[in-house]
């Protein structure tokens, strides 16, 4: 896999290439949102310019074609995560919306005697919805602690998941530390207690091969915009038998079968959960993104990103005043490197790095409890994707040294 070649598939790298006194475009924030290849933009444009119509309703050619493209994207998503079938794929606006749906619908019958287990390293999207549900339904929230090295405390899951546990919701990979969690082991513990397992796969599906059966998940959520797809589209996967038992959360057109003035009956799964006109172009874009990734192969993408992150981490470790966070062993993480520069607040660091064309994220990364566990107020995060190169990592290191010079001026 040649990242320099891959960059050519993305117009933004051509558009922002350094020239003269211009800054390079060293994009190291794919964990926040990834770049979008031309193939995806073209697929969406083709829909808008060649067969623009609504889906599922029209019988004219353009509508049939739009429907076919939309449902084909659904099949792409199912294949990408090893789902049993396309009927297990619900399109949402993103990961956050999917998790909110689960937190509301899965907790409807929970009460004070029940428990839901999360971890200390969750993104706010997999924390706040459960907190709100817990306040409404009065069930208890428990948290698997994170250790100083960024891994989950292995014994803690066994202690915390018990006969009161009804749901375990956990991130597959940490958006801050890159930690890949032992989801299968934890899922087995949960299932032994009759609990359901929901997986926040926002940081794993874009970066490594994911098979829902291997994970032992009952539900899984991910978003398109972190995996070369457009914004505004995500996937909620659920085991077919479970989806049959769930009620829809939003109502309206397309999710119904029959409507009278008195009531309505629902469409089949998964359309039951997709009310109103869906983000058609975005779903088509997601399908194109999946096909682009499948051509490269997710094992290859995973290997490239991890090696690059390890190279970057090694380089940064060699800079005095730089502290890294997260598991030391690269096989335990995706391509995310979180660090701090002594004497420079993460926001200032990100601003300074921006002057050298390096785009990183500074702050709490929507994981305030994890920051507290690590004993820091925030960190700088560089995330490596399939289009990043060793040169990008070298830029980062140079920019850090330059930032240190600025702050050490007397």
């Amino acid at each position, binding site marked *: 896999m040649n990242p320099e070649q891959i960059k050519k598939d993305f117009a933004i790298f051509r558009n922002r290439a*350094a020239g003269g*006194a211009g*800054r*390079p475009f060293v994009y190291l924030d794919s964990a926040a949102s990834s770049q979008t290849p031309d193939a995806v933009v073209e697929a969406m444009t083709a829909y808008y310019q060649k067969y623009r119509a609504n889906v599922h309703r029209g019988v004219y050619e353009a509508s049939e074609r739009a429907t076919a493209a939309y449902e084909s994207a659904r099949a792409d998503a199912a294949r990408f995560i090893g789902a049993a079938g396309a009927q297990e794929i619900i399109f949402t606006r993103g990961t956050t919306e999917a998790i909110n749906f689960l937190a509301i619908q899965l907790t409807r019958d929970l009460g004070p005697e029940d428990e839901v287990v999360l971890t200390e390293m969750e993104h706010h999207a997999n924390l706040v919805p459960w907190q709100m549900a817990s306040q409404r339904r009065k069930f208890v929230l428990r948290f698997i602690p994170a250790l100083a090295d960024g891994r989950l405390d292995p014994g803690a899951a066994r202690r915390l998941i018990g006969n009161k546990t009804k749901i375990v919701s956990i991130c597959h990979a940490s958006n801050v530390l890159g930690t890949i969690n032992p989801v299968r082991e934890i899922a087995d513990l949960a299932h032994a207690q009759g609990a359901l397992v929901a997986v926040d796969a926002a940081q794993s599906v874009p970066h490594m091969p994911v098979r829902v059966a291997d994970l032992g998940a009952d539900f899984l959520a991910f978003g398109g915009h972190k995996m070369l797809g457009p914004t505004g589209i995500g996937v909620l996967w659920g085991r077919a038998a479970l989806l049959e038992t769930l009620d829809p959360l939003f109502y309206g057109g397309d999710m119904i079968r029959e409507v009278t003035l008195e009531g309505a009956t629902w469409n089949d799964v998964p359309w039951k959960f997709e009310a109103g006109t869906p983000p058609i172009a975005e779903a088509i874009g997601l399908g194109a993104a999946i096909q682009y990734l499948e051509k490269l192969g997710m094992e290859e993408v995973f290997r490239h990103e991890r090696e690059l992150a390890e190279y970057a981490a090694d380089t940064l470790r060699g800079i005095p005043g730089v502290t890294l966070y997260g598991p030391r062993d690269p096989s335990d993480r995706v391509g995310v490197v979180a660090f701090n520069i002594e004497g*420079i*607040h*993460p*926001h*200032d660091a990100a*601003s*300074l790095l921006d*002057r*050298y064309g390096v785009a990183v994220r*500074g*702050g*709490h990364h929507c994981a305030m409890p994890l*920051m507290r566990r690590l004993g820091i*107020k*925030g960190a700088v995060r560089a995330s490596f994707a399939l289009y990043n190169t060793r*040169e990008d990592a*070298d*830029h980062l290191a*140079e*920019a850090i040294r*330059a*930032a240190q*010079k*600025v*702050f050490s*001026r007397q």
Partner: protein
Amino acid sequence: MTNIDPALLQEDMDGAEDLYREHILDHYRHPHHKGAVSACTHRAREANPLCGDEVDFFLRIGEDGRVREVGFEGHGCAISQAAISMLTDWVTGKNREEILSADEDLIQEMLGVRMSPTREKCAFLGLRALKKALTYTNPQINTPNTTNDTNSVHRK
């Protein structure tokens, strides 16, 4: 091996002074009026949820209605802390009307540099805390949680 032209690096390093000017770094490294005011008459905490800047602002307002003593505790990025430090210099001797009429332009002038809307939230944190402090007539801490109201400082 990298593609960053060393000349570009030098130029950018000097250009970085645009935001991180000498006086900003100086206030960040040696903040003025750092520390709580034990006999304070007004106090407020504010935080910037976007990047973890926090400030606890203390005022002692004298019988003449003017600020006799000022102090702050807190931590955060260079922009937020420098702006707060400069603000404590400015607020000394000011009265209520003068403080309430202070706005974002004042902070911009103090810092002497333009910044992006995102960094502006860092710069205006201290001013928000200062104005909030005026609403409390005894030295209680208001809720320490971050405020969602990022528009509480209005340009005139």
